[in-house]
């Protein structure tokens, strides 16, 4: 098995039970290979976000094992989980979640601050990569939704994470910005990044290598993507207006 196919994420018999006995995830097992783009889909309440939170080390499983890059995160305490998260995981949110009083550049540097040392040159380069070289000093309120999401993507990538997690990254974007964001994800995938994207949108799911369908906390269906050239899929998405 080459490095790209080696499992980055291994989940075994994962369950997450909340107070009151609500089973958000029920005995889920899966593997995600390095460099793979996995889409997770399902109706509301199916456990998508819970799974993403556990993969992002924002939550701990009630039962089961979650091994990311060889580390069993289920056994880590809160401080260790935080350290692991900032080293290994990059997060992209549906609602962007930028600090409103920091500029685009500073929002990216904030992620560096928590990781190690802020590097303005590196942060500038990350924003230029996502096409925001001219908007470095703008506050989030001065950026469009698509631009804010691109800042979010730059922030998620700045510390070189091994795993990129995105929760409905295009959910708040118009079609044009959705296309731009998806192009970015495709570029990252081509570069070998491992992506796990939660989405409601089948068109977004078709861009992935594999789609996992969750229902009531369990894996209902798993399908390999057999769509046509991805460019056509992206174009089709933009033409849906």
């Amino acid at each position, binding site marked *: 098995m080459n490095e790209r196919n080696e499992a980055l994420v291994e989940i075994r018999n994962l369950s997450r039970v909340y107070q009151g006995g609500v089973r958000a995830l029920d005995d889920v097992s899966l593997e995600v290979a390095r460099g793979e783009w996995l889409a997770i889909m399902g109706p509301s309440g199916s456990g998508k*976000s819970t799974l993403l*939170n556990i993969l*992002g080390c*924002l*939550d701990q499983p009630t039962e089961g094992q979650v091994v990311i890059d060889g580390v069993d995160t289920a056994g880590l305490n809160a*401080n260790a989980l*935080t*350290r692991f*998260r*900032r*080293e290994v995981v990059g*997060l992209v*949110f549906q*609602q962007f*979640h930028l*600090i*409103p*009083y*920091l500029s685009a550049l*500073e929002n990216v*540097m*904030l*992620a560096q*601050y*928590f*990781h190690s*040392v*802020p*590097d*303005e040159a590196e942060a500038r380069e990350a924003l230029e990569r996502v096409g925001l070289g001219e908007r470095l000093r703008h506050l989030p309120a001065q950026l469009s939704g698509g631009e804010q999401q691109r800042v979010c993507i730059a*922030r998620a990538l700045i*510390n070189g994470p091994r795993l990129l997690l995105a929760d409905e990254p295009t959910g708040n974007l118009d079609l044009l910005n959705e296309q731009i964001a998806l192009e970015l994800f495709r570029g990252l995938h081509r570069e070998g990044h491992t992506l796990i994207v939660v989405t409601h949108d089948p068109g977004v799911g078709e861009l992935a290598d594999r789609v996992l369908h969750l229902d009531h906390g369990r894996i209902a269906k798993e399908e390999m993507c057999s769509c046509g050239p991805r460019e056509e899929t992206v174009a089709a998405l933009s033409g849906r207006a």
Partner: protein
Amino acid sequence: MRRRMFARVLVGSLRKRASRTLIAVLAVLLGASLITALFTLSRGVESQAGRELRRYGANLVITAPAARVTTGIGNLEFGFVEAEAQLPDSIKGRLSSAVAQGEIEDFSAFLEGTVYADGRAVAVTGAEFDRLSVLRPWWKVEGAWAPKEADPQASSQAPALVGVATARILGLSAGNSLELRSDDRSISLLITGVVEAGGADDKRVFVPLDSAQALLSTKGISRIEVSVLASKGSIEGIAARLGDLIPEGEVRVVGQVAEAEARVLGKVKLLLGLVAGLVLIAAGLTIASTMTASVMERSREIGLMKALGAGNRSIAGFFMGEAATGAMLGGMGGYAMGTVLALVIGRVAFESTLPASALALPVTLVSALAVSLIASLFPVRTALRIDPARTLKGE
């Protein structure tokens, strides 16, 4: 670069919540101003009293017992008032004998009263001019203590020293002539100097004792200040013997006077301390509540920081940094306001111009910082317990 980023987040956060920040700063400022006022007052008044004790040299004061005068109209009695009485001038002879026998070191007589200058009432003190510079070495005199011998005016006019407050009101300076009038006498004086004594003496005019006696139509004396050597026996013992020598006077140890002042000061300090303590507690509660509100308002921001990998130390650091910044701003403003407050209280309550205390600044800042940081503990604890997964979902 880390420090710059930290400062950037701190400043941005404080500016975004400017009104809440202002409330917290004002709360600290109020408490800090009272701390400064208390500190400045206690050190200033104590040092002034101590200075007078140390430099004065006089250990004993002899005054006439206050006379009780019954007041009333016809058969109606309103009770009594205490009227100022005087000591006879002849006491000086007995005290001179005590000096000759080595019982006391030295003494000086004073007569106080009210006369008029330019139609205004003026407090006058008759004193032995040749002893004044020895008895009052801390006075700052603009001009001279006594007239120069070569000055032709000196032979025709008695000298006078005018307190700086009175000089300002009457528009006087060294070299001017001053006419003082009583009901039936007047006297022309040469002002040799303007005195800054730093107390009630700033409002007085000092003239030779015999000039004051002539003006006030009396041969009496208001008080005599006496210096004794401690090696001659206990001060209290000497005071008792002087009391026997001068039965018409009351002999008091100056320390008793200072003790009385110290008791008053102690009560003022206690009152200010209580008020300062209560205001600091109130400031602490204000800081705790504004910061808790801030944490609630920023729960998503805190959740995001945690999601980006911020540890507890980073989160706590931001909030403690905000509290410390507010403490410094409020502390410095409080120091300025408290210094003015001490000046006003010193003038009104102690007739004293108290200097600003440089030591009050670090004391105030440390107090403000302590209150702010302690008050921040609960809100910081709340911030550290925020669940990023839930807050980022909007719960």
